[in-house]
């Protein structure tokens, strides 16, 4: 863990409790997270371990029950709509399900135009906007001329997720929160999308929080890995440390759950 680097995002005792009384569920339980600038952090856990809730709290989409989020060392303030918009210039997300991520009534152009407007490009000449959108699309191997005036649902799942990356390309946030961006698409597109994400990260130097249930994927992309179980971090450290020498039985189990081609797959723990 390169400690000389600046801390970009951190949390202290972040907690989310849903419901009360008999229905009380602690989704995220006093989580402390430190995110250094420029690194890729994976948060790994099975479904229901609180990964997405944590992600939404980090994004400021839902409020936390307890604890604080610090952005660049300063306590995050998203009390007003304006402050939220300011915060979202720095942190952006890619969601799990590309099919439900887009408003089906909006055309692809408007999705990309929103990003340009958010970066203060509202008054740019139209030709310049088109140029920017074309550049973003070509970065993810899409042709803007073919996409213009189309609706997102006319694309395939992989194309939609690539469009999502094009969005990030235009927004150039400091932090990208990728919430299982490849879990809904086929294995071939997955590699392409991961590759594009990593390339984009290199290009604009952003910090990436990668949320996944696939520990193999986490090992492939990340510098630091957090293992999450029942809303808590049970183990964390550098990817090599956590995945090659796991200490916790839960981590061990997650590793065993990854199917391997040349070995017999141990289904007993699934």
């Amino acid at each position: 863990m390169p400690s000389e680097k600046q801390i970009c995002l951190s949390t202290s005792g972040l907690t989310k409790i849903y419901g009360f009384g008999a229905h009380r569920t602690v989704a995220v339980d006093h989580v402390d997270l430190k995110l250094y600038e420029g690194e890729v952090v994976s948060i790994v856990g099975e479904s229901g371990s609180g990964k997405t809730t944590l992600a939404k709290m980090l994004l400021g989409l839902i409020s936390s029950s307890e604890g604080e989020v610090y952005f660049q060392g300063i306590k995050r303030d998203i009390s007003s709509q304006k402050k939220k918009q300011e915060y979202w210039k720095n942190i952006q997300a890619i969601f799990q399900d590309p099919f439900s991520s887009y408003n089906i009534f909006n055309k692809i152009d408007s999705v990309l135009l929103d990003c340009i407007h958010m970066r203060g490009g509202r008054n740019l000449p139209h030709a310049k906007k088109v140029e920017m959108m074309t550049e973003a699309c070509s970065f993810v191997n899409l042709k803007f001329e073919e996409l213009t005036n189309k609706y997102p649902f006319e694309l395939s799942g992989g194309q939609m997720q690539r469009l999502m990356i094009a969005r990030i390309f235009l927004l150039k946030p400091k932090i990208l929160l990728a919430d299982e961006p490849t879990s809904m698409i086929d294995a071939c597109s997955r590699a392409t999308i991961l590759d594009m994400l990593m390339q984009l990260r290199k290009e604009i130097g952003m910090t990436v929080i990668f949320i996944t249930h696939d520990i193999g994927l986490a090992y492939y992309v990340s510098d630091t890995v957090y293992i999450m179980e029942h809303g808590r971090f049970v183990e964390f450290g550098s990817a090599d440390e956590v995945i090659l020498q796991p200490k916790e039985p839960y981590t061990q189990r997650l590793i065993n759950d990854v199917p391997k081609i040349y070995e017999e797959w141990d289904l007993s723990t699934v």
Partner: protein
Amino acid sequence: MKHTLQQIFRSPKFVVGFSIFAAIVLIVIVYPIFITDSPLGIIGQGTFFPPGIYVSAYDSLGSPKYTLNLPDAAAKRVAAKLGDQERADIRDWLVADGIPESEIDINNTEKLLEQWAQNYDPNKKIQGMTFAKQRYYQRLDTSLKGILSTEGAIIAQKNAETGTLEESNAINQADYVNVSEVASVRFLPFGTDNFGRDVLTELVAATRTSLQIGLVAGLVATLIGLTLGLLAGYVGGMVDDIINFVTNLFIVIPSFVLLILISYSVGQEQRGPFLVATVIGLTAWPWTARAVRAQVISLRNRDHVNLSKLSGHSIVHIILTDILPYIASYVIMALILQISSGILAEASLSILGLGPKTTETPTLGLMMNWAMIYQAHIQGRWWAYFPVLMTIALITFSMNLMNTGLDQVFNPALRD
């Protein structure tokens, strides 16, 4: 959008409902172009003229006459005045007068009339006969005069100077006029109402007003329900609690009682059709608000809404572009239902006498109210209320049918 419309018009239920509704709207628009009479103009002196073609008796005197020798004309003439009921009544009177029943043959018209002419005395009191019955027999006697005559009738006019009657026209029994040649003919398919107004013209105007009332009531209810539902559902928290409280309050108070109280307190003079419509709308919104709130709550945590937030959009923008289009189909369905229930609510209010004031425009409810007050249903004047009833039924039926059709298109679980 085009695809959705195609799907909607492929649903048989929607098409049937839409056709009925469109036909009603078309009649309401086209009819006043051809019949320009005032819908509340009183044309008949008297109440509840039965449906039929009304030919001016005076004008038919001056119309060209054609002689038609129809063999059954005389029999029809007799039958029209001396039906089975009248024959039986004559027998009853004669029997009461003391003539043995065996001597009376009610099928022998000539003999029966002869017996009647010989024995009937309008001044004679018969034990136990009501005054109304006595008057009936007097009327019957007058109408039977000259029934078997083979002569025609003579029309005479009084000479203004001498005061004597002078023959001006003669009508033979075999004289006919062609209805199309009579100067003044009025077709009253639904007769007249208790005030002597043409029911059809009135009905068309009433349907128009009722549709407008329904539309205003539906729009008001849907607009309030939609706004409150969107706010409660999207903003949540305290706002949701307050709106939910008010909505529940309106739901537990029966809205019809509220409607009656408001209509009553407004007063007869101030109650125009649009005020009544607004009042109906103001009491009908809670269910729309509830349903919209539920839908919005399920929508607000979807990823596309999150993405819109992350794109820096304001709450208003998100509600208008990311929430509203997703519930638009539901809102349209709710609007259709609100319109049809608005029409029904106006009818119910008017039957109770709390509808719009009666002097300016007829509404379907008011027509029912008038028919009820003047006892059309007791007197068997079906034309005063049955067409109104059918119109209300057809409007609500067609709207509900459209609604079910839309539901099947928008709700995949209901598709065949």
